[in-house]
């Protein structure tokens, strides 16, 4: 049987695994912010719709509508990104279109099981902000580690000394995810340690 001590890191690790395609794609800050924006749009639309639909709507219909809304909103987001930076869109386009199918987005498209869960719906929305922030931070950390500097656009080239060049590779992203996962498990075990 899973106890509370193992459940909390388990949920966080499952979420990290669900976000892995975006965390791997976010190899610099600009990509991280763009992917986080797309994730936030799909996640928020999906979660909000699942919460707003009345409980009498059959769960499977509520799920289908929330998932459809997430996909439609992603199309709008990618169009805006394409207008703002067409090359960035070409680099990220394929990754952005998988966002509506990611684990965290699919899980919030499911309608809450009962009224108590519906009342705690805002926690889901806050969670989405946290996940988006995690994607941005991943992009920031990977760019900083791999190039030793952060550049916002192509005009302002950042000069820096690489600290860990592998961080920009997918393998580097997986190493960072592993380190973050280990930290989550260690911290949650320390916090949830049963008092003697």
């Amino acid at each position, binding site marked *: 049987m899973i106890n509370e001590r193992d459940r909390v890191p388990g949920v966080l690790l499952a979420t990290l695994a669900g976000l892995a395609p975006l965390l791997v794609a976010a190899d610099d800050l600009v990509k991280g912010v763009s992917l986080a924006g797309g994730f936030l749009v799909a996640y928020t639309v999906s979660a909000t719709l699942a919460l707003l639909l009345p409980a009498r709507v059959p769960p499977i219909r509520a799920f289908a509508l929330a998932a459809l809304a997430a996909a439609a*909103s992603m199309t709008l987001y990618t*169009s805006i990104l394409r207008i703002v930076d067409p090359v960035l869109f*070409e680099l990220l386009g394929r990754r952005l279109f998988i966002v509506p199918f990611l684990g965290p987005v699919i899980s919030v498209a499911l309608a809450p099981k009962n009224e108590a869960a519906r009342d705690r719906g805002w926690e889901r929305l806050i969670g989405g902000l946290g996940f988006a922030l995690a994607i941005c931070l991943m992009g920031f950390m990977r760019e900083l580690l791999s190039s030793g500097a952060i550049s916002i656009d*192509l005009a302002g080239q950042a000069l820096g000394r690489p600290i860990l060049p592998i961080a920009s590779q997918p393998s580097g992203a997986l190493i960072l995810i592993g380190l973050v996962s280990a930290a989550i498990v260690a911290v949650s075990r320390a916090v949830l340690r049963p008092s003697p």
Partner: protein
Amino acid sequence: MINFRKPDASLVVTTAVIFVLALAGALSSRYASRLSSADFNTLLAPGSNASSTWELLREGPVVGRTVNLENVATYLIVISLSGGTLRAAIVVGKDGETRSARVLGSSSGMPYFKRLGVLIQGLGTAQSVGYSPLDSVLEPLVRNALDTIARAERDRRDALHDK
């Protein structure tokens, strides 16, 4: 007799909103596609966007190409390296050879990117780009991009001949 149940109002409204959202997405996607084509034309062939056509390729480092009225193609390449990307425009001659190259921008000022810029800038010129210990890492990337461009250009010429 068929007994129709009255649909739930919330479901009808939600479906209508999603339909409008999908329609807006489709229209904005079409608009963005047109706008990005114009942007790429301006980026690759400044001043001649009215007479060039943009084609999206998405083959390895090659993003796409514009072809002007003289049937000369300019390819947009994006080379990703540890810590950033470098964008460049490669003009290809009628025989498929690299005529000139221009670096459009780089997201990093690291020596790797600077040297890559020098290697690309030297394509199609008689000028020597010198030697750097970084070349062993960078030359395969440039060669891969040029091979992809040559393949794409050959396919384009073949398609033109078949017409």
